[in-house]
């Protein structure tokens, strides 16, 4: 099992280093291929097959373990039902919203193969998962890809390689955040007459998900196998016998036809011996094969430009027994491959008693069929009508498989050396043997290669500690970095790439924009503005009278504007949102609320400027106390008090109590505060005003409290 490690559940999926590979089907079984990948918050499904041995919902992979709407991507390797049979159901009956990809050839064959499958199933069984309509409607959602062309979906990159096996079959290389996975689907590394061998990817995957149908079996070498096949056929016809080759429709039929046609062409002495291909089967397939000639091997591609390699010179069609003149040596390919019934069975029964004749079983045999039975060399066989016949004809078995054998798999792994190998699509025992064999291969080597063979629903968890790299871009990158120098900017994450960018560069390097948020808040307020002015002056000391849209307004703390809308009985605050301004705004807001609602506050009305001598005298005394005797002068008219500190002068108008000081801000502040402090105190006691000044200086530390209650208003 995978390296055990405790996972911090706090880590969000896209930051986690955990890669989960979970077979929902094809885990220690053959059929219903469906493997889930989860990494960095992306979910990918590989294949969506049905189990041909089961029916109805039982035939589906374990879909109950997943949420279809969370899946980003679905990749289909080839057109066999155990790899794509559940696709119409998944697309039409679940809330899956992601994208689906397969090769062009797969899509073309998928359509007519499933169309027949659906119709036959609907007629012959009661439980059918989907209808012809569903299949038709699902077609539009399937996107096609070419071999070797990289596609990107939500940051997941993938491309496919030719897998051999069948026409259009693909192996997918998937790259998520720099981690590469290769899913082989079903593959064959052996080139045959019409399909190319599976390609060897040029990049090394970190994880290899590989089929294991044949476990540790080893196929005969292609050349030997073909030589044995043609040799056997030659022997049979040479001894004057008839050669029967039961074949599957498409499986290896073309392959055998191509081999025989070529052999006959090279052996003119055989030209008098007819080869029959009984039935029109697979011709339709051939038309698809001809259309997708690009997916085939170079030899066929070259040949197709000269003549059609699927038009055979030495092979004729045979419609049925009625049209067959059985007068001498001949070669007949007939279906079905298992000889359960039909033409192959008829021919077998009429030929089996003659020892000159021979039957060649090419391919895979199912238990319980005649084909399997005769391989055990019985003395007698039972005919369809129950009669017993002596079996005298020769019986040969030649395996033509479209799956990789142990040698191919082992060689494939040796060339790629992936740190992790995950076996799927194999019967439990075969898979176990294959795992043991692969592990043994690397036992004494330095290569760390782990082999997993998860059961259905069992997850393999792997960890890829991604070193996070962030590239510095734009103006931040204009200078060469120095040791100890700190870079400060905005970290931008896109898919699995990180960049550090100065805020001003955001617009040029990303599609992000810098925007300012202007906040606006209206508060019911019925008291006069002067009252508020008073309190706010108390608060900030730098009140500015201004007008906004012809309405009186105050600018407090330089950034917060308070507009008085007397007609509506409210005030509106406006400020550009940022951490500091928000703090100011909070303070202003609390003042407004206090003034507007607290009866106590309203009692404290600012003293109206009093035009009396005593008042001016007192103020002068206060200022003298604060700034020193020599700093204070009255002007000639007596209506201004001038405060001069360090050759800077502030003027206080005695009647209005306006303070003017263009030269020095701090002096202005001090004088203003003093004047205000004086006027606010009922008794205008000098000592109290000074104390109050101290209070004012510590006020900002109170008003920084959050959270703000302002309504957001974006400009």
């Amino acid at each position, binding site marked *: 099992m995978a390296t055990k490690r405790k996972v911090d559940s706090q880590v969000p999926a896209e930051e986690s280093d955990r890669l989960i590979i979970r077979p929902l089907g094809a885990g220690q079984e053959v059929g219903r291929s469906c493997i889930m990948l989860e990494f960095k918050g992306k979910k990918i499904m590989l294949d969506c097959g049905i189990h041909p041995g089961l029916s109805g919902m039982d035939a589906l992979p374990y879909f109950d373990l997943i949420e279809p709407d969370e899946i980003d991507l679905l990749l289909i390797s080839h057109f066999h039902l155990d790899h794509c049979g559940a696709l119409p159901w998944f697309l039409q009956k679940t809330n899956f919203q992601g994208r689906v990809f397969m090769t062009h050839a797969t899509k073309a064959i998928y359509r007519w193969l499933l169309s*027949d499958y659906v119709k036959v199933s609907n007629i012959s069984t009661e439980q059918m998962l989907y209808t012809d*309509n569903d299949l038709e409607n699902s077609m539009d959602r399937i996107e096609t890809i070419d071999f070797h062309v990289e596609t990107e979906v939500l940051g997941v990159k993938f491309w496919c390689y030719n897998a051999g096996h069948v026409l259009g079959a693909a192996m997918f290389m998937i790259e998520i955040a720099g981690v590469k996975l290769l899913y082989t689907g*079903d593959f064959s590394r052996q080139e045959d007459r019409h399909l190319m061998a599976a390609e060897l990817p040029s990049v090394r995957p970190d994880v290899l998900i590989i089929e294991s149908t044949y476990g540790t079996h080893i196929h005969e070498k292609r050349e030997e196998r073909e030589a044995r096949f043609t040799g056997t056929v030659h022997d049979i016809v040479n001894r004057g016998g008839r050669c029967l080759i039961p074949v599957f429709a498409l499986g290896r039929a073309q392959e055998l036809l191509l081999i025989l046609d070529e052999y006959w062409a090279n052996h003119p002495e055989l030209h008098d011996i007819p080869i029959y291909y009984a039935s029109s*089967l697979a*011709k339709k*397939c051939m038309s698809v094969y001809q259309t997708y000639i690009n997916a085939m091997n170079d030899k066929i591609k070259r040949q197709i430009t000269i003549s059609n390699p699927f038009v055979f010179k030495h092979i004729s069609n045979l419609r049925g027994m009625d049209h067959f003149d059985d007068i001498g040596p001949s070669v007949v390919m007939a279906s079905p491959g298992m000889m359960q019934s039909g033409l192959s069975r008829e021919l077998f029964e009429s030929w089996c008693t003659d020892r000159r004749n021979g039957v060649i079983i090419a391919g895979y045999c199912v238990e319980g069929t005649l084909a399997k039975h005769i391989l055990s060399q019985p003395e007698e066989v039972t005919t369809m009508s129950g009669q017993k016949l002596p079996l005298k004809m020769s019986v040969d078995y030649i395996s033509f498989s479209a799956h990789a054998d142990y040698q191919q798999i082992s060689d494939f792994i040796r060339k790629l050396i992936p740190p992790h190998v995950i076996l799927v699509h194999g019967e439990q025992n075969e898979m176990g043997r294959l795992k043991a064999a692969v592990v043994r291969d690397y036992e004494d080597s330095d290569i760390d290669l782990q082999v997993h063979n998860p059961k259905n629903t069992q997850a393999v968890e792997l960890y890829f500690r991604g070193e996070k790299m962030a590239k510095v871009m734009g103006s931040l990158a204009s200078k060469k970095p120095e040791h100890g120098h700190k870079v400060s900017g905005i970290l931008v994450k896109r898919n699995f790439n990180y960049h550090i960018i100065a805020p001003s560069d955001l617009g040029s390097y990303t599609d992000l924009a810098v925007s300012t948020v202007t906040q606006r808040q209206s508060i019911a307020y019925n008291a006069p503005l002067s009252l508020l002015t008073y309190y706010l002056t108390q608060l900030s000391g730098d009140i500015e009278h201004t007008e906004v849209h012809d309405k009186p307004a105050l600018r407090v703390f330089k950034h917060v504007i308070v507009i008085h809308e007397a007609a509506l009985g409210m005030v509106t605050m406006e400020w550009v949102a940022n951490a500091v301004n928000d703090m100011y705004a909070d303070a202003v807001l609390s003042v407004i609320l206090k003034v507007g609602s607290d009866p106590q506050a309203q009692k404290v009305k600012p003293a109206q400027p009093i035009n009396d001598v005593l008042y001016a005298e007192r103020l002068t005394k206060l200022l003298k106390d604060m700034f020193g005797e020599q700093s204070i002068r009255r002007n000639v008219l007596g209506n201004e008090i001038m405060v001069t500190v360090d050759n800077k002068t502030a003027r206080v108008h005695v009647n209005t109590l306006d303070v003017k000081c263009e030269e020095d801000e701090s002096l202005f502040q001090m004088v203003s505060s003093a004047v205000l402090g004086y006027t606010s105190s009922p008794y205008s006691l000098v000592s109290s005003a000074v104390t109050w000044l101290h209070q004012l200086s510590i006020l900002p530390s109170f008003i920084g409290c959050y959270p703000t209650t302002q309504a957001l208003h974006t400009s």
Partner: protein
Amino acid sequence: MAEVGQEGTSDDFSVFVEVKEKIHAAHIVLGLQDVAEKCKEDASKITVTVQPDSIEVNLVKDKKRQFKVPNISLVPNSCHSLQWIPGEGLHMRVQTRSDDTNHSQPIEHNDVKNYRHEIEYLESENCQLSCRVCNTTLLRPNCQFERVLPLPSENWQELVDDWCCHHNDTTEKMKKASMVPRATDCFISDLYLSLNMAALRQDKIASQESTLETELKEGMNMVIICQVCRCPLGEAKLTDVKKRHQHIQELTESVKFYKHCINLNKNSLPLDVFKSYTLESYFARYITTQSSVNTSYKFILEGQDTATNNSILIWLMNTDSKIMMNVNSISQHAELSKLMGSINYERNGTGVKKSLQTYSIIKLFYQAVWDEANRSVLDQWKKDNTVHRLYLPSYLCHQLLLLLINNTQHLPKSMRNTENNFQVGFLKIK
């Protein structure tokens, strides 16, 4: 109208346009030979103008004929290969622009989309099938289909082995799955309906008594006819042939009714659901289907139930052509012109404006092989692996040949034969 008709026939001529949609070309033949002779004047005074939507012919004495070409537009300045063929008239080729993309799609083999609406009708209550000729009802009273399902392609069984990479019991079982409908089933394909005997009024259907005493064999197809009018309705596969001259239900389990032989009625009112299916369209679809299933363009068509070895060689050329004709070329075959409907006339100043009738067709070469004639080609074809053999009931072979011969007559004379003794024919799809 009569006046127009008269004017139309007095010195009218045939117009024939063959449109090859895929290559955007139209071959136009104007049968001006007779007109030129009648005029007793120099035929060179006749002017022909090609316009995007019509062909205009100015005859002598200011007589003008205008023919509209529906659904395509001609490119006048692309006109080439202008040729006067003695005894016939003017030939030319013009490029086309197709306005109507729907028409250019070739008929898809057994695509359920083509007959989904028929399934809906068949699923509804009170539907009844009847013989198209005599309207004899064929279904048992109150017959209601529980399942109306599309049939798979004809050769599906041969491909089952390729459904999976491994042999397994299910596909094996499926392969043996019977496509025989149960009593409440109606299976449908693009050409026929397949019904269980139990759903039918067995007194209204019969098997055609073969005139020849051919041996009945299991798996052989027999022709099913209407008991009342003796017209063919479809076919049935023999399943039990132990006894000769049995009643039909003992010979077979199910019957296939050709869509072109039956009517669909609802609440005793005839619907025109199957109206577009004709014998000719049946042949056209049948040949197209066989071509796509077998990837074959050459066929040897043989009568299934005759001892003689007459056959028709069929060489399919294309399935996406259209032909346009005016009434003149058809009028000599009264029966056919009736079938093809009337032509729209439109008075237009001094001349007569006509819309050409358009037919989607499949184009083929054919040759009948009777006795020893043409044997050599037949023998050659028999050896050719790309040639596919087809078997149809003899009566259908004869009908196909008649249709083809008849249709050939509509082609301009110079376009009826090929060098290698084949006749050029066509079959209308719709």
